[in-house]
């Protein structure tokens, strides 16, 4: 219990993560401050000072991870994290501090401390406005600003954040903020996941009595939510000043904040258009409690402030043939562009019709106010509509946001919201979700929509209406620049929330060229798109694509006879498919006629993509497509394809340390960053064969960047020009790439690292085993190997029976350390999109708990 005191005191010892040595008291004319200051702990000259300002009702404890990270950094920073007057452990002056007072008092403090440039400010919550006030007033010292869930504009009361409105009512305010600890408790409850009890107590430590909480209420009263509020002019002054700032800026944002929601992020970005953004989709108001923001901020300080890269003198990049160019050139061609088979009927869209419809939709979008650079989320199943909409967006220069239902509803919604579209074009079901979750202000319906639903959702237009609008518009559409944003795609989210991946038009053109050269597709040829997304590539390649009779949302519904019909329809020699579609074909091969078999025998190239393809599945396919070269690519949302391999080469390569994925496709390059003992990829990019490491890739079709995930992008691109895939593997002496799993899943034992793929395949081959996963438990560098088996016969989760455990151990003799434990589970957790990527991270967490004697659910 802290005695009520009016003087500034040091922070008590024993608060988690807070070194009492950082704590000091600084006296200024307005009062005595408690601050955290690491100056005495620094062993090297600091780059500059990070001035951290907390909001309401927290204190400098909020910045403890920043102090620790800045102290330990290779290029350290001094951190001054203040407790504002009458807050935290600073003096209780008894004064009421308005916004302008607090900005001035902070200046008094930095004058007293004699801070010299460079200073970077960091602010959270209302501390953000105060830190920006200081920033605007000290241009001579200022070198950058960091903002965490904050604002410099305040909507008038009727539009104030709903979560805050009740406490802004004067009577309620006193009760919520001062008389009780309600406001503090509510704020601390905003953490995701829940804060540890000791950390919650640390946040409460300086606010134990009503007397010590007086300023918490004053802070709320100082929210200038009405036009005549005394602090409004000061806030407006600061906001105007912020718009003039040209120093590096970083916005680190928790998206699940009921107070400082995305609209405040948008406002700050409008004022600081050059700012770097990292938006955490699952973090909340206390973003620095939910995520390791400090490490990222130190990286950012290093990159943007301490050692900013020389101004980029981009070499003149070669001109690019845009994806939509072919379509425009063939606007008078009556030949087939798209052929869709449905039972005995078919629908053909000519190049002329597709080109006209695309142009009309593009103009129609412009008419309803979509501008080049605006983002448009497209939720339309594969088919002629989707093809037209995508090429229309590309023509207009609108950025298409493509999220697939395979992410699951929650992740899909988070992904779309994260990309901040201005419009959603979707089928009725998608528009219902778009409305419910407020994805975008403008909705456009693709396909039929019920009149009442349309009116309830406030749908702006249908695709047909857009075409009509476009047809009568005489707007001249400019073509986008090759280096403008073109699309945002999403990773599968099997390792954390789905990440948005931004492509430029140049990147998409690179993807088209890589596919064309690898699979020998040219204009005037035809292919069968048994994996629907590939149909989208046809207009870019100038090739006719035919879609077989199947449910595009369930690839397994493809039959051998339907595929044969598609091959016959266009005399297609190239087939694009997914593993699920191939499984469907194999399951129905007995129903295929002799004619069908003859048609399939004519297929020359089959590409299976979308998920990893087991070699035995390809072997079985060969029985049905005896004349085809069977290809599988390796790639990821960030770059596709990276490599390609044919079945014959996989068979010739034989057993190896992982999965042989072949050689880089045209334009792509692959290199390896070797692993250290603790399983971190630290090696410089190297092509030396047989070195295990993280796989780095590059090529013309590499992503431009991750969307509003600055820290993630920075980490993935830390080797200039390369993308770190997070996969591990090695090159062999013949230049082939072998993939051995994910970097995060490497088991780092005290006798070297173990990658999971090869040992898992040995266990998979055992009788009674459906599939298995190899995970590590314990600290990296001394991890133990654990095998988790999903048996053929369902079993409860727990230790494997002795016989199974013994057989697994026998199968894995020869690993650097012996298998510590064999566990069984009823089913291994996998990703939603492919149901094939085992969630080893979750599995490892479960195994760690069980093997430490704790109860755990998978």
């Amino acid at each position, binding site marked *: 219990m802290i005695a009520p005191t009016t003087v500034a005191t040091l922070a008590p010892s024993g608060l988690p993560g807070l070194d009492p040595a950082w704590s000091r008291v600084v006296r200024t004319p307005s009062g005595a401050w408690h601050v955290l200051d690491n100056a005495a702990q620094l062993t090297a000259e600091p780059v500059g000072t990070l001035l951290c300002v907390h909001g309401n009702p927290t204190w400098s404890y909020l910045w403890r991870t920043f102090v620790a990270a800045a102290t330990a950094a290779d290029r350290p920073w001094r951190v001054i994290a203040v407790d504002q007057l009458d807050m935290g452990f600073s003096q209780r002056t008894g004064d009421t501090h308005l916004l302008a007072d607090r900005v001035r008092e902070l200046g008094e403090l930095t004058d007293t401390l004699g801070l010299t440039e460079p200073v970077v400010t960091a602010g959270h919550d209302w501390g953000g406005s105060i830190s920006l006030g200081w920033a605007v007033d000290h241009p001579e010292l200022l070198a950058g600003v960091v903002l965490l869930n904050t604002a410099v504009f305040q909507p008038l009361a009727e539009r104030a954040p709903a979560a805050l409105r009740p406490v802004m009512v004067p009577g309620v305010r006193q009760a919520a903020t001062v008389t009780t600890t309600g406001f503090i408790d509510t704020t601390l409850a905003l953490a995701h996941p829940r804060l540890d009890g000791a950390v919650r107590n640390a946040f409460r430590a300086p606010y134990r009595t009503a007397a010590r909480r007086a300023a918490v209420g004053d802070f709320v009263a100082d929210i200038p939510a009405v036009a005549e509020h005394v602090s409004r002019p000061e806030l407006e002054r600061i906001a105007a000043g912020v718009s003039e700032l040209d120093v590096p800026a970083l916005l680190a944002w928790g998206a699940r904040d009921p107070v400082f929601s995305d609209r405040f992020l948008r406002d700050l970005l409008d004022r600081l258009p050059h700012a770097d953004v990292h938006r955490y989709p699952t973090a909340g108001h206390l973003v620095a409690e939910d995520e390791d923001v400090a490490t990222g901020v130190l990286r950012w300080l290093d990159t943007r402030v301490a050692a900013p890269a020389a101004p980029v003198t981009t070499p003149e990049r070669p001109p690019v043939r845009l994806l939509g160019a072919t379509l425009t050139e063939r606007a008078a061609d009556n030949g087939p562009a798209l052929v869709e088979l449905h039972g005995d009927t078919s629908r053909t869209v000519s190049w002329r019709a597709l080109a006209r419809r695309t142009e009309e939709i593009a103009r129609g979008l412009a008419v309803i106010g979509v501008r080049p650079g605006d983002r448009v989320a497209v939720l339309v199943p594969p088919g002629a509509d989707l093809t037209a909409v995508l090429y229309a967006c590309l023509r207009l220069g609108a950025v298409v946001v493509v999220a697939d239902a395979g992410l699951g509803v929650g992740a899909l919604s988070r992904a779309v919201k994260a990309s901040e579209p201005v419009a959603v074009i979707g089928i009725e079901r998608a528009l219902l979700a778009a409305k419910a979750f407020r994805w975008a202000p403008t909705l456009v319906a693709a396909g039929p929509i019920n009149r009442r639903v349309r009116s309830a959702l406030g749908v702006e237009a249908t695709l047909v209406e857009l075409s009509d609008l476009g047809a009568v518009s005489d707007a001249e559409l400019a073509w986008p620049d090759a280096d403008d944003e073109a699309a945002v795609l999403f990773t599968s989210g099997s390792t954390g929330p789905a990440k948005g991946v931004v492509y430029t038009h140049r990147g998409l053109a690179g993807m088209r060229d890589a596919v064309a050269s690898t699979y020998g597709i040219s204009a005037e040829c035809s292919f069968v798109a048994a994996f629907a997304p590939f149909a989208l590539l046809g207009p870019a390649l100038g090739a006719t694509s035919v879609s077989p009779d199947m449910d595009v949302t369930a690839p397994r519904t493809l039959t051998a006879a339907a595929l044969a019909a598609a091959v016959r329809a266009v005399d297609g020699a190239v087939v694009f498919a997914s593993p699920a579609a191939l499984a469907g074909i194999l399951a129905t091969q007995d129903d295929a006629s002799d004619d069908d078999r003859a048609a399939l025998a004519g297929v020359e190239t089959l590409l299976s993509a979308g998920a990893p393809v087991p070699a035995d599945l390809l072997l079985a396919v060969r029985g049905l497509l005896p004349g085809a070269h069977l290809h599988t690519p390796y790639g990821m949302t960030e770059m596709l394809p990276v490599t390609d391999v044919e079945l014959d080469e996989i068979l010739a390569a034989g057993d190896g340390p992982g999965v042989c994925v072949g050689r880089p496709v045209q334009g792509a390059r692959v290199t390896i960053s070797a692993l250290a003992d603790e399983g971190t990829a630290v090696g410089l990019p190297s092509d030396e064969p047989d070195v295990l490491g993280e796989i780095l890739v590059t090529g013309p079709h590499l992503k431009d960047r991750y969307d509003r995930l600055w820290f993630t992008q920075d980490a993935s691109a830390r080797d200039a020009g390369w993308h770190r895939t997070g996969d591990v593997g090695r090159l062999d002496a013949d230049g082939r790439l072998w993939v051995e799993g994910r970097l995060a899943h490497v088991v780092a034992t*005290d006798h070297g690292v173990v990658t999971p793929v090869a040992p898992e395949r040995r266990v998979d081959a055992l009788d009674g085993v459906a599939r298995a996963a190899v995970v590590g*438990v*314990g*600290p990296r*560098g*001394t*991890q*133990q190997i654990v095998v988790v088996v999903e048996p053929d016969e369902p079993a409860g989760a*727990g*230790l494997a029976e*002795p016989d199974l*455990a013994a057989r697994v151990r026998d199968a894995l003799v020869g690993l650097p*350390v*012996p298998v*510590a*434990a064999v*566990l069984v589970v009823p089913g291994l957790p996998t990703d939603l999109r492919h149901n094939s990527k085992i969630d080893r991270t979750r599995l490892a967490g479960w195994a*760690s708990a*069980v*093997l*430490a*004697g*704790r109860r755990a659910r998978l």
Partner: protein
Amino acid sequence: MRTVLVTGASGMLGGAVAARLVADGWDVRTLQRRPSGVAGVHDELGSVTDAEAVSRAVAGAEAVVHLAAKVDIVGPEAEYRAVNVEGTRTVLDAARAAGVSRMVFVSSPSVAHTGDSLVGAGAGPAEPSRARGPYARTKAAAEQLALATDQPGFRVLAVRPHVVWGPGDTQLVGRIVARARAGRLPILGSGAPLIDTTYVDNAVDALVAALTAPTDSYGQAYVVTNGEPRPVRELIDAICAASGVPVPHRRVPAALARAAGAGLDAAWAHLPLPGEPPLTRFVAEQLSTAHWFDQRRTREALRWEPRVSVDEGIARLAAHTRAAVDA
């Protein structure tokens, strides 16, 4: 010939260390209350609490391996303190007075264990007030005492072997076998917690290696194990099978076992009951939490690697059982 004193050589580990040192060409003295039974050593009979006996035993030795301790799970703490703390002080004083240059203090990972799971843990600081049970608390105090004595000319190092077992072991193997035979060995909880153990030959190797470890490895404590943790149920099953006793089948929830253990601890502490309780809270905790260790620092500092795997150790235990039955 170089002379070494081994205290506590009547135990499994102490006897094996003495025998190994004889084989390595040392002149070996031993100090314990009963004859060590080790061939080729000079037995000094007495307690480490007897300063005169200790002085006699250590005279002329250049090195000491101090294993003698009261190792048990019940009994008044004062008895542990007399042997483990005061006895160690006596040995330290006598050794320094006799000009001994190196002393290896045999400790236990339990000195740093305060009840939570240890997962890939290093050798944490000894916790004389927070360690579990009188043995661990007094060994913790003794280890602090020993390491505080380390100085140029009199180097002291602590080795903490974790759960040493092997043929002839009365502690782990003996207790498991006795209880399994009596049908009083349940499976606690899931039986899944990973427990690292030390096959006796590996512990012997590590202690002998410690005697010749580089000087800068001294002054510190090292946990020694096989580095092969196994689920506790698999270990117990394997030991039972190798010892020819029935494998346990009865399951008891871990929390219940801990509570029962605590109750029995209290009963044995306050009532004149014979022997040891069927289950102590300490044992219940040991069997329902993970204990395994990061061995990298130990192997580097002692220039030592375990030679006998858990599987090989189990095979040797089974061979020992067969030989005993045949005899």
